[in-house]
C-alpha cells in the first residue's frame, strides 16, 4: 500500500518519550501555580493529566 506523502501519521518512540518528559517537568509546576491561585479544579485537572501521562509511560514498551 502506498503511504501518504507529506503528513506524518505517527510519531517515533523517542518523540513520544520527549513529549512525556516535558509534560512531567511542566505539569507539577502548572499544578503548583494553579493551587497557589486557588484554582483547585485546574490543579486537579493537571494532576489527572499527569496520571494519564504516567499511564502512557506504563503501556509503552
Amino acid at each position, binding site marked *: 500500500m502506498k503511504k501518504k506523502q507529506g503528513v506524518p501519521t505517527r510519531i517515533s518512540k523517542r518523540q513520544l518519550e520527549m513529549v*512525556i518528559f516535558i509534560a512531567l517537568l511542566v505539569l507539577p509546576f502548572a499544578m503548583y501555580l494553579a*493551587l497557589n491561585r486557588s484554582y483547585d479544579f485546574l490543579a486537579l485537572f493537571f494532576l489527572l493529566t499527569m496520571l494519564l501521562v504516567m499511564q502512557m*509511560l*506504563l503501556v509503552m514498551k
Partner: protein
Amino acid sequence: MELSPLLFITALIPILLVLVLMIGFHWGGARAGAAGWTSAILISTLFFGTDLEILVYSQVKGLLLTLYVLYIVWMGLILYMIAQESGAIAQIGRALTRMTENKTLQLLILGWVFSSFLQGIAGYGVPIAIVSPLLIALGFSPVLSVSAVAIGHAWSVNFGSIAASFNAMIGVSGIDGPTLAPWSAILLGITCFITAISVVFIYDKGKSFIRVLPAILFVGSVMVATQYFLAIQGMWNIAAFGAGSLGLIASVIISRLPFYRSRIDHDKQTTVKPTKSEKQDIPFLLAFSPYIILIIIVIIAELIPPVHEILNKVKINIVFPETQTSMGWLNKAGKGQSISVFGHSGALALYASGITYLLFRKKGLLNPKAYRTILSKTVSTGLKSSLGIITMVGMAMIMEQSGMTNTIATGLGSVTGRFFPFFSPFIGVLGSFMTGSNTNSNVVFVPLQKQIAELLNLSIPLILAAQTTGGSIGGMLAPARIIVGCSTAGLTGQEGRVLSTTIKVGLIIATIIGVLTYIFSLVVKNNL
C-alpha cells in the same frame, strides 16, 4: 498517626511493586516507576488521607529533587560523550590495562578506588555515570560494570560530595559532628572492605579473592585510616576525598608489584573496544584531561570559599506551606530542594565539558561537527533514564509526604524491639532506595532513628551511624541511581538485571552492618 499491620503492609505495596516489576519481570525503571507512582497516588489517597494539596506539593518537591539529580546526570553525560567521541575513554582503558594486566585488580582500582575518589569530590551519580563506561571499555560486561561501581563506591557516600549526607545528619539530629563522626567512620570503614570483597565475588565468584586480598587490605587500610583520621579531626567535608586520593596513590604502588602485573589464568581475554579515533595515539594525560579538569574545577569551586560563595549566589528555592493528612501526618513548612544554578555539581561538569571540548577541538581530537553527535547521543541516552528518575522520585515524595515511608519505618521499629540496632541500617537503606540519596534518607529518617534510640536507651551516635551507613549502602540498590549507571552503560531498559545483583549484595552488607551494630549496642550505651 496510628500504626496498624494493614497500614504497614499497604505502605509497602509501591516498593514491592517496583521491585517485583524490575527484578521479576525485568521492566525498565521508567515503566516500573510509573506503576509505582500510580499505586502510591492511589494508596496515599485511599488509605493515608492525602488531599490534593499534599499530592501537588509532593510532586513539586519531587520535581525539584529530580531537577537537582538530572542536572548532574545530563552534564555528566555530556562530559562522558565528549571523552568517548574523542577516543579518550578507549585510551584510558588501554593505559590502565598496561598498568596491570590483572583484571580483578583493574576492576578494583576503577570500580572501588577511582569511583570512591569521584564520590569524594563530586555528587550524585558521577562515579556510576563516569566509571561504568570505562570498565565496559576495558572489556567487562555492562551489567558487571554498573554493578561493580554501584557497590564499590557505596562506602564513601556519607563523607562524599563534601560530606553532604553527614552534614544533613548533623543538621537534622542537632548533634555535633565530632560526636557523630567516630562511629560513622568506623561502620563505613568496615563497609569499605566488604564492598571491595563483594566486587571481587560478583566478578569471578571469589576465584581471585586470595590473590587480591593483600591489595584490598593495603589500599583499604589506607583509605579507611585516612577517612577516619580526617573525620575525627573535624575535616569530614574532605574525608572521602582524602581517602580516595590516597587510595589512588596506594593503588598505583600496589599495581607496580610484579605479583600483580600479570594476568591470571581464569581472567577472560578481553580487549579495549576500538573507537573511530583508535588510530590517534592520545597521550594518557590528555586522554584523562576531562576528569582532571573536572577535579580541578570541583576543588576550586568547593574548597576556595570566595569562589564557592560567588558560584552559589543564585539558587532556585521554593517555599512550601505546612500540610497535614487526615490521618494526622504533618509536613512542616519549609524550602524544597535548593538548586544552585552555577555552583551545582552539574554546572561544574558543564564547565569541565566546555573546557574539554575546546581543548580537544584545538588538539584535533574532535571534528567541527562533533557537537551534533555528542548532543544527539546525550539526548538518546539521557532521556529514558530521566523518565525513570522522574517517576521514582515522584513516587518517593508521595510516600514521604503522605506518611507512608514513616509508617514503614515506625512499623520496623515497633516490631523489632530490642533488636532494633540490627534493623537500623535497613531503615537507612529504605530511605536511599526510595529517594536514591543518602542525604534524603538522613533527612527523612534521622529524627525517627534518634527518637527510637532514646526510647530504647541506645547509643544515639551508633544508631545514627548505622542509619547513614545504611543510607550509603542503599544507594547501590536505589533504582534512581541504577538508572543513571545503566544510561551511560547502554543498558537502558535493563535496570532490573543490575538491580538483581546489587540488591543481593546490598542486603548482605546491610545484614553484616546490622549484626555489628547490634553487637556494639550491647556494650555501648547512650551517653549523650
